[in-house]
């Protein structure tokens, strides 16, 4: 029932979501930590920028990314100066876009988890002569595990569900930028409804199972 192009799209989507989630956890951890603990004036603006992709339509993000990453855009000039070429129509470009697009879904659960932990466990760790880095990995990370679970699942699932941004900067290249959501769209447009149903139903089942796992493993959601 699935064509080889469908399976290629599924594989590419999983790869994109995995790379994006990994990068987001690496970038999101210090960012969320800073947001959770800073008293700086910048906390408000930074938090707002992180949350932007939740409210902006994907067309706005896709359009600005296309322009910014193009040959005349600031990002495009930067990547060209580094000898990397242009990002649109490449897998790397999709990763950059997805990291921005799914950022709040990773940062916000982590930030909530860090805020819930508070100062006291760290103070206790400090009295035991733990270095701040040691304290972070042996005290904060284990305490924030539900936050990390939520962040990973939401970051991954949100990237799998991405469509508008990929459509606008992807260029529909097999094995590079043709993800499942775009493939479904093409099937529908080409009136190949049977193939569209196969992939679309798969997406519904996948999304349900992911969220079910999240709510079962993490019944309280965020920690109070």
């Amino acid at each position: 029932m699935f064509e080889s192009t469908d399976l290629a799209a599924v594989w590419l989507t999983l790869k994109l979501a995995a790379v994006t989630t990994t990068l987001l956890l690496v970038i999101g951890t210090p960012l969320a930590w800073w947001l959770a603990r800073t008293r700086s004036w910048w906390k408000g603006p930074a938090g707002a920028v992180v949350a932007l992709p939740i409210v902006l339509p994907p067309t706005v993000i896709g359009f600005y990314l296309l322009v910014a990453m193009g040959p005349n855009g600031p990002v495009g000039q930067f990547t060209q100066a580094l000898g990397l070429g242009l990002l649109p129509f490449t897998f790397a470009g999709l990763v950059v876009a997805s990291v921005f697009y799914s950022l709040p879904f990773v940062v916000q659960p982590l930030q909530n988890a860090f805020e819930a932990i508070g100062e006291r466990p760290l103070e206790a760790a400090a009295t035991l002569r733990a270095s701040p880095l040691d304290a972070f990995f042996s005290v904060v990370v284990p305490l924030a595990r539900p936050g990390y679970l939520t962040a990973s699942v939401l970051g991954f699932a949100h990237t799998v569900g991405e469509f508008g941004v990929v459509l606008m900067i992807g260029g529909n290249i097999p094995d590079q930028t043709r993800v499942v959501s775009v493939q479904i769209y093409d099937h529908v447009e080409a009136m190949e409804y049977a193939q569209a149903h196969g992939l679309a139903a798969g997406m519904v089942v996948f999304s349900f199972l992911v969220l079910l796992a999240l709510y079962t493993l993490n019944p309280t959601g965020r920690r109070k």
Partner: protein
Amino acid sequence: MHPLAKKLLPLALLFAGHATWADEVQVAVAANFTAPMQKIAAEFEKDTGHKAQLSFGGTGKFYAQIRNGAPFQVLLAADDETPAKLEKEAMTQPGSRFTYAIGKLVLWSTKPGYVDDQGEVLRKGDFNKLALANPKLAPYGLAAMESITRLGVLSAVESKFVQGENIAQTYQFVSTGNAELGFVALSQVMKDGRIASGSAWIVPASLHTPIRQDAVVLANGKGNAAAGALMKYLKGDKARAIIKGYGYDL
């Protein structure tokens, strides 16, 4: 009934039947016909008093929406297959279908002097990407694919393909400079009978199947005076002049 009313009633019915009153028509317009249709609709509204509500997009998407009860009364498709298919499925008003424009394909770059008037730039292959509309979905994409194949450069340029889901998106890829070269609709880059910016090669019609764009009144539009008036207007001199001004054949 008052005797006078009795005399006036047929007269009133005559006017009602004639529908000289302003009506509104919902039109689904192929993406490549966006600019000319906006102009035509403005003139149409001025001349007839009817109102035309325009929606722009890919013809395949419109097909799916129409099959699922979209409120469009007229479809201006990017091809002749979709209207014919809808006709076969009894989703149209029989006998209303006609070709309103024949599209022209153009190889375009935003860089002035880059595209030569023979399309040799395709053979040189020193461009980063070649944008075209998805040949599976868009008639302009199919025409581009046929031209590339007939020129014998398919294997040379295939690795540089980037595909837009319709011709509007393909234009976007080229106009933002992300693709140095692309096959778009002449109507998108033509203004007042000239290529408005960059450089272009009008692909000879002999290289691909003609892009016949058909219009049809949908089943929804039966009895809508504005729908009939719009079809008539599209065949009129004023509309045809606008359509030609954007580089379409008729």
